[in-house]
Structure formats: structure tokens, C-alpha cells
């Protein structure tokens, strides 16, 4: 393997610092134009637009099978939060006019912009777990429309990417795109190909076919080190025999950045990740969280334009994980760097990412904002995978779903099942079912009930405010709606006896 470590003058690292990609036309064949900002806006009316948009844009592509389109109607939403950021990303530092080697250094101050020179709009990601940043587009401020337009440029895009290892197909016709400044999650069960996809973007695996573009440039044949990528490995892959300082400095040394500039940049990053004072430690002497932060700093040191993280929280115990999750989310928002992370944990993906790409068996099942995936799963797999769904076979026996075709199955989420507290008047008597409480478990803010209804087992949440229920007790339950599986599609079906009552998607707890 002959690797030339030299960043040639016109090389990528330089390109990163210099005017990054504003001029680069959106990837041909991609149709960012077909994501009207309007499609991103509606929050109400679950059935209509976002899903419809996704499907239509999906059908526009040749992609076969379950591969969903690459368009993200909802991407305007993340735009709301990253749009504020994108000026920060776009600039790439004030001193970026110098191309080539020097720009790698000038990229360093670029980060400074991300940290200190944040735009006023930065307050947005303050509450990342609230709906606000995602719904940013729902309340289009003056910058909102512009942000959406900016973000419409796909920063990373995959088109028809295939990869197989021997007989095993790790990626089949994978297509998706990620707008600039967004945090995407590749979510799927183990063996679903998500890590392979990430490694192909990084250049650690070579796709058998298809195009991978970063910032509009096809990178398939570009050496990993020329792609402008920061990579955080699953177990961090810190250099165990180098100090924290040397770990972070490694990438810069490889780019032959002058010593003084390296020192400055490393200190800056260690300050950013609150690792000051630990420069001389070895990775073996750090805690899991500290290692993650070093890995993060190391990945960011050469000022990449794309950050890839492979299961970044897998090696950390559950307690610290949540903390680190929001730390990382916050950090990525502050820097405004386009990022993709791989996870098998849906709550991680849904809470952290702007866009979630669900993979299964090497295919992309669906891509969209967490809310879209949650509200409108396109395939049975997504319906089952997202949320705490229970799958029912042949559900036509349930009251209100008599119209179901014989043998059809569906997924029911706990919030679709309302338990009428005993002793209270039953509201929709004729649409309710009789159920027996099988078990009750305490979930902090609510109770989780396992219920038996006509031989089906369902789960529901039950407020602590209501009269307590005990296992064995008979209760009335109302099943609002289910995700009916129809071939390879999942479709929301409401309880037919409730139709007169209207059917906004109300979370019932």
C-alpha cells in the first residue's frame, strides 16, 4: 500500500480552508429543488405533506426496493438550527485565502470562529432536546428561508452505493444525502450495513459501485486523507503509545503544519473539549468520557469538513452516555460541522440527530427527521424499529379495525393505546376493547402496562395521576390507530369507529 502522506498544494485540506463549496453546484441528479421549504414547514396534519413529499421525491429516483429517496423534506427544520451555524462553517476562517499547506493552519482559526465567533443565532441549540431547533422551519424567521435554501445543498450524498463482502451484501443501492451543517444518524440493527456505509464515506472501504460525494466532489477515488474527514472510531482508536497532546497533534504533523501552529491548535482543541492539563497523559490513563473527547479533538484537529463517528457512545457506560450525548450534540452545533454518526440505539439517534437514516439488511429503509420517522414510518421495518412498537398479526379482530385484510399485520405503539382508568366513565364505549392487565411496571413518570386484548399482547403507558391498576384487573382500552403493513409499506390506519371524532396525531399519555 503506497500512501503519499503529503498534502499536495491543491490537496483537499487546503480546499477545506479556502472557499469551501459555495460555488460547487449541487450534485447533479440530486434534486434539492424538489424540497420546497414549504414541505418542511407543516407540523400539523401528519398524513399529508411530509410523508407525501418524501415518497414522491423518493419515487423520482430509480432506486428500487425499499431504498427511499434521498430527499429530506424536513431538512429545512435542521436548517433552522444549523442555518444559524452555516455562516460559521462556510467561512472556514478569516485567513483562508492562502491555499495549500498554510491553509491547514488557517483552518485552525476557522474553528475559533466556531467557538468564539458564534453568530447571535447560536442560542438556538441551547435546548437541543426540545422541539424548537428541529421545528425551526415551522416558525420561519427572517433567516429561516435563507437557511433552508443554504441547507438544500447536499453536503454529503451517496447514490446507488453497493458493497459486498464475498456473498454478504453489506450495502445495496444505498442513496441518501445530508445537507451542510446537519447531524445525521445512521441507525439500524447490527449487521445492517451502517458502519460499512460510514467507512465507505471515509474511504476505509471501497464501494463496489455508486457515487459518494462530499461537498459536491466525487470522492470515490480520493485517498481517505484527502477527503477532509475527521473520524471518531468506535473504541476511539487513540494512539495508546502517544500522549493526549501527540494524539491530537498527529494529523497536523502529517500535514507538515509548523510546530508552533500545531501547539496552538492543539491547545485550542483541548480547551474546547475541556481537556486542558491532561496533555501529557496517555489514553490508558483517561476515563471513557475523556477518551471520547480526545478522539473528538483529534478528529477535529485538521479542520475536517465532515465529521464521521462510529458508535461514539457504545464504549461508555449508560450513566455518562446521556451527558456526552448532549455534549457532543452541542459541540457539533457550535462548530456547525456536517456530521454523521452510526448507532444502533434509536433513542440516541432520535434525540441527537437532525436526520436519521434507517438501514436494514444493507438497504436504506427510510431517511427523514426523527419526527417524520416516528410519525410516518414508510416501511414495516421502520414502524417496528422506531418507538416501542408491538407487532400484531391478523389484527382485523380488533374493534374499529374490522376492515383490515385477512392475515394482515400491524404495529401498535404504546401511545396508541389508551387505558380507561377504572371507575371513570368510559368515553368511547363502543370502540373500546376489554383487556386484562398482565403486568405493571413503574417507569418513573408513568406506569407501563402490559395488556392482553383478545389474545393480543399490547403495551401502554398509564399516568400515575389515575386510579392505580393491578395485574389481573379488567380495564377498557381504546386503540386509536395502528401502522398497518401493506406489502413493503407501512400506513397509518385509524380506528374506524373514531373517525367522527377527528384524528390529529395526539400523543396520548
Amino acid at each position, binding site marked *: 500500500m*503506497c*500512501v503519499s*502522506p503529503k498534502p499536495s498544494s491543491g490537496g483537499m485540506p487546503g480546499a477545506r480552508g479556502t472557499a469551501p463549496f459555495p460555488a460547487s453546484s449541487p450534485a447533479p441528479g440530486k434534486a434539492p429543488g424538489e424540497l420546497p421549504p414549504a414541505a418542511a414547514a407543516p407540523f400539523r396534519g401528519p398524513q399529508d405533506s411530509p410523508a407525501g413529499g418524501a415518497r414522491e421525491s423518493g419515487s423520482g429516483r430509480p432506486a428500487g426496493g425499499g431504498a427511499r429517496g434521498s430527499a429530506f423534506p424536513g431538512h429545512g427544520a435542521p436548517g433552522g438550527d444549523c442555518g444559524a451555524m452555516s455562516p460559521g462553517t462556510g467561512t472556514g476562517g478569516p485567513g483562508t485565502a492562502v491555499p495549500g499547506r498554510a491553509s491547514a493552519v488557517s483552518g485552525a482559526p476557522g474553528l475559533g470562529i466556531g467557538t468564539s465567533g458564534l453568530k447571535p443565532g447560536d442560542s438556538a441549540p441551547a435546548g437541543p432536546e426540545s422541539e424548537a431547533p428541529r421545528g425551526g422551519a415551522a416558525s420561519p424567521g427572517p433567516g429561516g428561508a435563507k437557511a433552508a435554501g443554504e441547507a438544500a445543498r447536499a453536503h454529503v450524498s451517496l447514490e446507488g452505493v453497493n458493497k459486498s463482502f464475498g456473498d454478504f451484501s453489506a450495502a445495496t443501492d444505498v442513496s441518501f444525502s445530508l445537507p451542510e451543517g446537519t447531524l445525521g444518524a445512521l441507525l439500524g440493527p447490527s449487521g445492517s450495513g451502517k458502519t460499512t456505509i460510514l467507512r465507505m464515506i471515509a474511504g*476505509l472501504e471501497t464501494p463496489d459501485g455508486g457515487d459518494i460525494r462530499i461537498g459536491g466532489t466525487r470522492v470515490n477515488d480520493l485517498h*481517505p486523507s484527502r477527503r477532509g474527514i475527521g473520524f471518531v*472510531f468506535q473504541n476511539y482508536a487513540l*494512539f*495508546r*503509545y502517544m500522549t493526549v497532546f501527540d494524539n491530537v497533534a498527529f494529523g497536523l504533523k502529517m500535514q507538515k503544519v509548523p510546530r508552533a501552529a500545531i501547539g496552538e491548535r492543539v491547545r485550542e482543541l483541548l480547551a474546547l473539549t475541556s481537556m486542558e492539563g491532561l496533555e501529557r497523559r496517555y489514553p490508558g490513563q483517561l476515563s471513557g468520557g475523556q477518551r471520547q473527547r480526545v478522539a473528538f479533538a483529534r478528529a477535529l484537529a485538521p479542520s475536517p469538513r465532515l465529521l464521521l463517528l462510529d458508535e461514539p457512545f457504545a464504549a461508555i457506560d449508560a450513566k455518562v452516555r446521556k451527558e456526552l450525548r448532549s455534549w457532543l450534540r452541542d459541540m457539533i452545533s457550535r462548530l456547525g460541522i456536517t456530521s454523521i454518526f452510526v448507532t444502533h440505539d434509536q433513542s440516541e439517534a432520535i434525540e441527537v440527530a437532525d436526520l436519521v437514516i434507517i438501514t436494514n439488511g444493507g438497504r436504506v429503509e427510510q431517511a427523514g427527521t426523527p419526527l417524520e420517522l416516528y410519525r410516518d414510518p414508510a416501511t414495516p421495518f421502520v414502524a417496528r424499529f422506531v418507538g416501542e412498537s408491538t407487532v400484531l398479526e391478523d389484527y382485523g379482530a380488533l374493534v374499529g379495525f374490522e376492515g383490515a385484510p385477512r392475515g394482515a399485520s400491524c404495529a401498535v405503539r404504546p401511545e396508541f393505546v389508551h387505558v380507561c382508568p377504572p371507575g371513570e366513565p368510559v368515553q368511547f364505549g363502543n370502540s373500546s376493547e376489554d383487556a386484562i392487565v398482565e403486568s405493571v411496571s413503574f417507569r418513573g413518570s408513568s406506569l407501563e402496562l402490559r395488556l392482553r386484548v383478545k389474545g393480543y399482547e399490547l403495551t401502554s403507558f398509564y399516568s400515575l395521576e389515575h386510579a392505580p391498576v393491578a395485574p389481573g384487573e379488567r380495564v377498557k382500552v381504546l386503540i386509536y390507530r395502528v401502522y398497518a403493513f401493506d406489502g413493503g409499506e407501512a400506513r397509518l390506519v385509524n380506528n374506524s369507529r373514531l373517525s367522527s371524532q377527528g384524528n390529529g396525531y395526539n400523543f396520548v399519555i
Partner: protein
Amino acid sequence: MDGWRRGNGTLRVFLIAFSFVFITVFLVLPLCQVLWKAFEFGFRPFWESVSDQYALKALKLSVLTTVAAVICNTAFGLCAAWAVTRFSFRGKGFLITLIDIPFAVSPVIAGLVFIMTFGRLGWAYPFLSAHDIKIVFAVPGLVLATIFVTFPFVAREIIPVLTARGTDEEEAAVLMGSGFFTTFRRVTLPHIRWALLYGVILCTARAMGEFGAVSVVSGHLRGRTNTLPLHIEILFREYHTLQSFSAAAILVATAVLILVARNIVEGISRKDADYYVR
């Protein structure tokens, strides 16, 4: 479990005592006998027989072949270990098995293989004689035979370490633009340095004492193709007991030195692992 291990006092005492007695009777006493025989008549006769010109030449030749074999096998071991642990290819399992051949094959056969290849009956003989290259019954043959016999040691020590370490640190380095040699020097070598040294030490020990294969290809030309073990054997056959045991004492001394070095390396690597890893 603990009770099973500790409770049976007699079994414990018996096993420990048996091990000690066995090693003492079959290993330590014979070695002491060698030293005792060497120094039976005091230091002067010992020194005289050791500083005999043929003994010195044999020692020199042993050191030469050992150094050559160790260098070759270190290079080969690194390449093989790298190939086996870093690439996936057809016939990988086969290659790993091949590396182990010298462990399974008798050294005499190793010697014969070279005779049949480079000797008068060998297929390479016409070419070699045409170019006046001597391999069998000359130093190159000794080196080849030693290489053959000692070649699994380095690879065998490194492969498990490289396997356990995984490839992600190297991938990280390559992603950051590090070339092959930089990656090897800065990232891989620190991981395997102690295993490598350990392999080199074992390889040295084996090469110094190699007898069988070398005996076949040597031709026993005194002062020219006699290594120290061969020299010892010849002296012994000629009833030069004192000289023979004196030379043997040197070999025992090197073995002890090598063992000490091995233990030091082992100790350091363990401490090293505690410090850097986890």
C-alpha cells in the same frame, strides 16, 4: 473452586515437589555437571581449551550465523505477521500453517532439504557450480539451515499481538494522512516492540544452539564450517572431554544470559502494558 484448589494440601505439596525434583534431576544437575566438568582442573585449563583457535573460530561462526538468521527471520516475521493480520486473502490459513512447519519437521530433514536442493544431487547445483557459488558445506548453507529452523519464532510472537490490537489505530493514522512507514514506526511498532524483542531473543537462543540441520549441511570442516555445537560434538567424539565441556560451558552461559534477557523483557512489557493500556 477455591476450596478445590487450596484445600487438598497433600496434592499441592506433591505436585510442587514433583515439578522441582523433575527439573532438578533432568535439567539442572546435568547442566551443573557440564560446568563442573569444564572447571574440574581449575580455570587455566578451561581458558586454554576455550581460547583454542578452532574453538574461537567455531564461536565466531555461531555468532555470525545466529545474527544473520535473526536478521532474516525478524524481517520475514514482520512481513508475515503483517500480511496475516492486516489483509484477508485466500490461503491465509495455509500460510499460517506453513510458518509452523519448522516446529513440526525434524531439523535433520531441514538439512537434507538443502542438500537435495543445493548439493551435488540438487536441481540448483549446475547453476551454482557454473557461477562458483558454494552453499552446502559452506557458511551460506549454515545460515540457510539456521533460518529454516528458527523462522517461526518472531512471526509467532507478533501475530497474536497484532491480532489483539486490531487495525483501528492504523486506520486512524492513515485517515490523517500518515504513510505506511510512518504508521508502522509511530503506531504499530510501539505495540509490538516487546513481542518483537521477545521473538528475537527466542530466535537467538534457538539459533545459537542449533545442531541437527546445521550438522547435515556443515560438512564438519574444522575452522571453516564448524559452529560451536558441532565443535563440541567433534571434541567429545575425539575424547577431548575437557575441551568439549569447556566449550559447552560457553554455550550454557549464553543460554543463561539469554534467559535473563528474556525475563527482563517480559517484566518490562508487562509493566508497559499496565501503563499504556487501560
